[in-house]
């Protein structure tokens, strides 16, 4: 279920409604940030990557975790094989 795509927040289109323009693979759409802004103003999310489902950002993407996940396998290359 639930096709979700990574998107980068480009700008805030309506701060009061937490609406932002985001880019996903070169395609732009308005998305809603209200579930991923903690307390700060939405502007702090500009540039951040989020995971979007039916127009709502459900999570920020952690670059660190993504790299760690990929690195894990690079490492494992000569680990688990044995």
């Amino acid at each position, binding site marked *: 279920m*639930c*096709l979700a795509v990574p998107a980068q927040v480009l700008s805030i289109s309506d701060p009061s409604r937490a609406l932002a*323009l985001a880019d996903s*693979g*070169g*395609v*732009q*759409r308005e998305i809603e940030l209200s579930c991923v802004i903690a307390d700060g103003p939405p502007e702090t999310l500009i540039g951040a990557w989020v995971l979007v489902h039916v127009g709502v950002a459900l999570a920020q993407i952690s670059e660190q975790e993504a790299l760690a996940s990929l690195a894990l396998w690079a490492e494992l290359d000569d680990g688990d094989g044995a």
Partner: protein
Amino acid sequence: MTDAKRLTLAHGSGGEPMQQLLHQHIQPLFDNAILARQEDQARLNMTLAPGERLAFTTDSFVVTPLCFPGGNIGTLAANGTLNDLVVGGARPHYLSCALIIEEGLPLETLQALLADLAREVRAAGALVVTGDTKVVPRGAADGLFINTSGIGVIPAAVDLGTHRLKAGCRLLVSGPVGDHGAAILACRRELALGGDLISDCASLWPLVKGMLEEPGLLAMRDATRGGVNAVLHEFAAAAGLSVELEEAAIPVRPAVRGLCELLGLDPLQLACEGRLLAAVEADAAERMLERMHAHPLGSGAQLIGRLVPQRNSAVIVRGLYGVERSLPAVSGELLPRIC
């Protein structure tokens, strides 16, 4: 027309307002002596050398919106019919242009669209020689529909078609797929998408003219409705063979891919309006590809697959990890998915 800025039913009623519309606003755009005779039919002084055949094709264009990045219904109506001629190996000669106008269409819009249509037809060395104009009440059509029919001449030496397809022949696509379909989807107001999505709408004649000089060309189709997927299935069905595709070889622009990821669609199902699929002899594929690359319209051409003896599926794709999967025919309208 005097001051009226929008077309009304009167402009389609056969009387004075229609004559004015045609003579003052439409015929001048196509400026040619055959059309200017204003008979019920164009009279064409054609001579056909022995072995030459006439190519005859028709298409209606119903695109929404009328204007989109990379083109409009005018360029589409010109190039769609030109392309249906040239993929049969025909040099385009004459087009008809029949309009169904929803009352209320601004005259200015109509003129701009037809000017573009006329320009594209002229660029291919063809003429619009006959036409028709209907105006229907509000709500009985969606702005503007255009039908173009086309007549071309197939040289005696040219014999292209699915009857020449055979196992082993290679499949070339002339450039990135799905650009037109993606551009149109992005225009749909309810989807509210932006991005660098531009229709590939173009006349393929300049590209095909060169390809016809190369040996080994067996069949061509422009990949319009149903996209490359539809052409592959048509080839497979007509030839009684199967298609094997290399997924990694299929050219797709980043933004088109982005749109497909977002909406859960397959780029192979999206329409193109300036791409063709060519089947060529295996040993001619390399040179044909070079020839295509030499023209801007074919600079992104790729060898994407081949025909093989019939398998259990009509079209089989070898994916990124070497696993084969079946590519079924498109089963209906393209619907964005959430899951």
